């Protein structure tokens, strides 16, 4: 199953992990990061790729948001990041605990 009962809904204290059943990699020919999974490939824009790279199974969502906001000199990214993580979770790209 791509997800099960142990998966938590996205929120500040949840820890996301990029799903081991998927692969995130840079594709020279596409000039972007892509997610590879059975039967498919999704092209990512640079921001989405960066968020997913943060989903290392250690940092919680709160920390991910803080880190990225710091990197982008204090821009308010919270809503965008949460929204994207929900989509990513819905698609099975990340698991949560």
């Amino acid at each position, binding site marked *: 199953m791509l997800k099960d009962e142990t998966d938590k809904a996205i929120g500040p204290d949840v820890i996301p992990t990029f799903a081991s059943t998927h*692969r995130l*990699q840079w594709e*020279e*020919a596409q000039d972007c990061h892509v997610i590879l*999974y*059975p039967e498919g490939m999704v092209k990512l824009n640079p921001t989405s790729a960066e968020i997913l790279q943060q989903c290392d199974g250690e940092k919680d969502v709160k920390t991910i948001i803080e880190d990225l906001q710091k990197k982008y000199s204090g821009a308010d990214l919270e809503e965008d990041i949460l929204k994207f993580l929900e989509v990513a979770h819905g698609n099975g790209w990340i698991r949560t605990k």
Partner: protein
Amino acid sequence: MAMAGSEQNKIPQPLWLLCELTYACPLQCPYCSNPVEMAKVKNEIATDDWIRVLREARKMGATQLGFSGGEPLTRPDLEELIAEARQLGFYTNLITSGIGMDEKRIKAFKKAGLDHIQVSFQASTEDLNNLIAGTDAFEHKKEMARLVKKYGYPMVLCFVLHRRNEDQIRDILDLCVALEADYVELATTQYYGWAYHNREQLLPTKAQLAHAEIVAKEYQEKLEGKMKIYYVIPDYFEDRPKKCMDGWGKVFLTITPEGTALPCHAARQLPGLEFPNVKDHSVDWIWNESPDFQKYRGLGWMKEPCLSCDEKEKDLGGCRCQAYMLTGDATNADPVCSKSPYHSKITDLVDRVDELAGTPELEEKPMVFRNMKNSREIIKKKSSETA
């Protein structure tokens, strides 16, 4: 800038490489899409040839890789090819019946870097599964599915649907749930190769399809986010064709066991192709320059009714193989299309099956199982017909 250069830039490069490593297979599925004349193929290309194909295709930008067959497990160099593919950055899929697999090999594939294993089942019950597969395979397949899970691969289960198992769809999906599948492909029988030979024996009835669609939807909704279920209505029951392979020479590249490059695995039967072989040409030349890959690329080859049709960009006139098989001319519209003057070839068959399903005339017609003996017989029959 030279015209040739800018033209060439417009050709999309292959994303998906399918390596049919062998036609050897311990199963005998009557819906197999391998060519019925497969017994003619004597020489499989060597490991080095495959490695060169992988390198060249990857360099062109291919990311998805399928190892299929026949049964790819019969190739002893499979581990080596998987390792090379991983190192090149492919996302590698092993498409297998599971026969010839054991825990040791599953483990070795994981170590080599295999990304996923797609196990095909013939049905949800032992009897029917084994009848269709032509061998005793069901328990072993279930065991392999469990091991796929144990070693952390995404689990993709594939069921090919047809009249004999279509009504089992609920049991099939329950079996997938029990095995904790991540992805389920409810594949429609594609009427090429052996399946074309057996199409009267395999085509489902309209009532069966309507039922299957409802059940598939129900499970899709119930399991949303947990299990991804792919279900497509077979094109024989539609009045517009599918955009076959996403377009000729656009996304897919198939290499057959003896090294022939094809825009789709069924294309071998089409007349007038030259069948470039990877032993003689680079993958780049085959994709970008060879006459075969240009032949039905885009819209230039079309004639009426497709030529002046406002839907031609959408479906590209459908499948060239289906057009050829059912109308004798590969440049005709796919007869699935209701605008095709040959559309009745499809609807007549669908109606005939609807009328006769359940009667001995249809149900007792023997299926031609996919094996080398039957292949040789078909080849012999064809050559005596043309002699």
